[in-house]
């Protein structure tokens, strides 16, 4: 056999091997869902079955509650509408926005708590949507991606968010009326949000415990929040849009001021 003949046959082998490897890779790519993550550690559980279960429970729970509300009977409206369909929709959208700001007359009484609540809500969503690892997991689950905030900024915001949450809890416990009105749902919902922010800031500082333990606790706390979300007061995060929107829609229908 000549040298060129040998080289040619090696070439053909290489092409065949490459084809085989490429097919094998394509096969394994489609069977990613078949790979089971290890569950022998807390982190393995959190990233594996824990994550799957939490997402599915959250999706099922959200659909349950939304369907359960949207399919309820609504009182029939016999009067004529005072606004066009577009006007009604616009009224709904406007009310979602305007109800976020308290009326001036109430500001002296509720200004502080609304301010703290705003700090908390803005901070929480800035962390959730601006933190690089959060964008990463959403990207992995849905394919969406957008630019992240600098890590130091997210850490500072986390600190402010934690402080606001503690202040709000203190008010709930100290104020006699708030204390009377509060139910276990309120406290559990507070805890379900507080724990992810707390474990998140500890994880970013890589302090108190090992990275692996902190990561496991952080992911588990987020999974707790996801599981609780559809069933308690946290559901306001979804329903606020529906309820304000529906109210605005009906007010516009009636021609009432919003």
């Amino acid at each position, binding site marked *: 056999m000549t040298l060129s003949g040998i080289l040619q046959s090696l070439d053909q082998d290489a092409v065949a091997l490459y084809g085989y490897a490429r097919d094998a890779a394509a096969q394994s790519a489609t069977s*990613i869902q078949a*790979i*089971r993550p290890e569950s022998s550690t807390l982190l393995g559980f959190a990233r594996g079955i824990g994550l799957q279960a939490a997402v599915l429970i959250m999706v099922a729970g959200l659909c349950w509650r939304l369907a359960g509300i949207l399919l*309820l009977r609504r009182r029939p409206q016999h009067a004529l509408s005072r606004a066009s369909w577009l006007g009604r929709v616009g009224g709904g959208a406007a009310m979602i926005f305007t109800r976020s700001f308290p009326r001036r007359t109430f500001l002296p009484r509720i200004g502080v708590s609304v301010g703290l609540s705003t700090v908390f809500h803005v901070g929480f969503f800035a962390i959730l949507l601006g933190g690089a690892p959060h964008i990463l997991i959403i990207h992995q689950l849905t394919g969406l991606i957008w630019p992240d905030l*600098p*890590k130091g900024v997210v850490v500072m915001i986390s600190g402010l968010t934690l402080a606001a949450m503690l202040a709000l809890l203190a008010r709930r416990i100290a104020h006699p009326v708030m204390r009377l009105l509060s139910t276990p749902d309120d406290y559990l919902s507070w805890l379900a949000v507080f724990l992810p922010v707390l474990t998140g800031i500890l994880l970013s500082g890589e302090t108190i415990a090992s990275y692996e333990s902190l990561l496991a606790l952080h992911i588990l706390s987020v999974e707790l929040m996801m599981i609780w979300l559809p069933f308690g007061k946290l559901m306001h995060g979804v329903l606020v849009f529906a309820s304000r929107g529906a109210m605005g829609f009906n007010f516009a229908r009636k021609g009432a001021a919003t």
Partner: protein
Amino acid sequence: MTAEETLGDMLARRGFSRRSLLKFAIAMTSSLALPPSAAPAMAANLAKSKRRSVIWLSFQECTGCLETLLRSASPTIESLMFDFISLDYQESLMAAAGAAAERTLREVVAANKGEYLLAIDGSIPAKDGGVYSLTGGRSNLDMLSEIAADAKAVLAIGTCAAYGGIPKAYPNPTGAVGVEDLVSNKPIVNIPGCPPVPEVLSGVLVHFVSFGTLPELDDRKRPLAYFGTTIHDQCYRRPFYDQGKFAKSFDDEGARQGWCLFELGCKGPITHNACGSLKWNGGTSFPIESGHGCLGCSEPDFWDKGGFYTSLAGGSEVGWRNAGVAAAIGVAGGAAAALSARSKVKADKAEPGIEP
């Protein structure tokens, strides 16, 4: 080399002065995170140490661990020490084979009862009586229990021997386990890694020969001096992690600039090993320096951590199909609840005199 020759005599015979042995001891104390003042005592102990028998059994393995240790030997005192300390029985390397090898093994065990070190690489298949890995007709399971019984200590070399390794990956058809799952009454040192960093084995052996004890171990029985910190803490790309500069794909601008590989699946933050500082091939490089994220190869079950390219922030795929099924179940439940509420309202309305 007679049975009574000390390591110091052997080195002198080969033309190495005590000064070279002291230099080696200085390097070893640095590697083992001992104070430099321990070096003269270590050198003196090494010099007067007698041959220590090491039996090396290879079980369900790829031979990568043995290869890495062999290839790492440059003509230094370290490799001479390996010659001196080892290696009475090792199937891949020894000249004897078959029945002669079996006889050698029995003789070595008998001659060094209670004093030999047992080094294991490869996992041990335990399912079906261990029939999935046999040597000379005997299962690895039986060999381990017999030979470990008279050993002074057991060294589990590589992740397979330490924790089960790749044979243990899901679905683990052979029932592979690590040494520590089978041996409970002997001191065990795990030297995990796929393959392990060669300097770790020499460090452990030097410590054992010099001081007669095994080095301090962590809760996974790994030498603390080498497995006390994570790759994340040793990594030269750490400043990029802290600044939030991540490579998004293997050939983007960030990757070219040497940014952190967290988003490409690096398991550095949860992996304890020495390769971030000691590196491979005599300090040449290590996976992150070569542009690939850490696989976490010195941690148990690293093959089943959900994929090498899934970041620590991510986890298992949920899948749109599964989400769809969950949504459908949710809608069905909610609809049922709403319908029962609606029919209750209707029933109330049907009753005369009752307000809807």
